[in-house]
């Protein structure tokens, strides 16, 4: 019979979260013990010995009130400060993080690797390398939760969310969906396998008969007829996509926006939302409902690969700038 009391710590941030957790637990235990002890002590010491006792009136003490308002709050500020440190330190993935794409769908996790592997409810990652997971949802809100890594992020439909972690210990860990998503919510679980660098290379070599994600995207690009208008080297009816990803593009209404994952996503699903300067609205059909989130990610990776062949994309220069952790809408704000 297993009775685990504490989860394994298998990522770079796990121990920092644990230390804070221990600190919080310690304060909780001390405070609870203190209150219990005082209550018990008073209850016994001042128990009613006769019905005619007359306890002295005590109205209060301003000093005490201030002390027990301010001191706990100062302690709580340390929680706040420490917690915010961890939260912010882990907000943006480092620029050299390895990309993995995960799509939540009632009720499974579909994982894609840039190298072309695809898995369901299994995630294979190499040890000691930062991994950035781009999260998308096909339907409702899911939440990508790996307890051993102490990371969790909701996967909200209609946008890309990102999370990242650096696994530190080879092994197999739970992957859960933590946001209630319907009938088989509790079946939306899988395993994260952390492998040594060598094992990972071998594993990568073992699969992926359909080519890399970019190649799959390129095939889709042809199949969906995108190539008719978006030609690579000469002007078609649509913009040339080479070198677009990660650059700032000029829109019809005069604004300039960053061409990141969210922008490409919106341009495919709702082409009229942001039309580039010099092009007409209503030329490109919408692909909403015609391609899956997975295919969308393949197309994005393909467009991204077009940038890498040319100039180094902006996203690689400043890690934070191109993170697609935005609603598809925020880009429209001035």
């Amino acid at each position: 019979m297993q009775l685990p009391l504490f989860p394994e710590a298998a990522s770079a941030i796990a121990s920092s979260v644990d230390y804070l957790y221990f600190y919080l637990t310690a304060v909780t235990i001390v405070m609870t013990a203190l209150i219990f002890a005082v209550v018990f002590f008073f209850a016994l010491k001042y128990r009613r010995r006769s019905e005619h006792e007359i306890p002295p009136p005590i109205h209060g003490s301003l000093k005490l009130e201030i002390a027990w308002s301010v001191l706990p709050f100062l302690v709580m500020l340390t929680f706040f400060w420490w917690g915010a440190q961890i939260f912010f330190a882990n907000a943006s993935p480092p620029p050299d993080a390895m990309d993995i794409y995960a799509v939540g769908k009632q009720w499974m996790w579909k994982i894609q690797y840039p190298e072309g592997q695809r898995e369901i409810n299994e995630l294979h990652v190499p040890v000691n390398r930062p991994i950035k997971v781009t999260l998308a949802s096909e339907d409702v809100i899911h939440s990508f939760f790996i307890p051993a890594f102490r990371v969790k992020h909701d996967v909200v439909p209609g946008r890309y969310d990102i999370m990242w972690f650096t696994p530190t210990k080879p092994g197999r860990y739970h992957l859960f969906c933590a946001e209630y998503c319907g009938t088989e919510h509790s079946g939306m679980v899988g395993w994260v396998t952390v492998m040594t660098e060598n094992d990972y290379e071998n594993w990568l070599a073992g699969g992926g008969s359909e080519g890399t994600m970019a190649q799959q995207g390129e095939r889709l690009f042809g199949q969906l007829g995108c190539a008719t208008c978006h030609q690579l080297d000469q002007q078609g009816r649509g913009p040339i996509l080479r070198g677009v990803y990660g650059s700032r593009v000029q829109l019809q209404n005069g604004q300039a926006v960053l061409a990141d994952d969210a922008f490409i996503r919106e341009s495919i699903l709702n082409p009229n939302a942001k039309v580039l300067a010099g092009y007409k609205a209503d030329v490109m059909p919408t692909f909403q409902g015609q391609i899956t989130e997975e295919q969308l990610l393949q197309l994005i990776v393909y467009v991204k690969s077009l940038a890498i062949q040319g100039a180094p994309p902006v996203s690689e220069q400043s890690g934070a700038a191109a993170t697609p952790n935005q609603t598809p809408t925020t880009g429209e704000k001035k």
Partner: protein
Amino acid sequence: MHEIPSVRTYVTIWAILTVMTFVTYYVAQVELGAWNIVVALLIAFFKMMLVILFFMNVKAESPLTKLFAGAGFFWMILLLGQFFIDYVSRGWMPEGKLW
């Protein structure tokens, strides 16, 4: 009870309110950029204050009534304000540590 305002006061307030309605209608046709909405809301706020203070006679009411009348709008601002704490900064991403 408190004093009863005269018919004249009521009619004056009505006249101001009607004029303000036309003002807001025409100002909306003038290009002021982001100020259009500000002006429109300021006029609406002014009209609201007139209705509350005079038609609803809060001017002569007890401080308690004033407090409750004000609390509603304060809470609504609280609701909107805190929505916007999220929506305004939604796209911002911190770089590394906070401090």
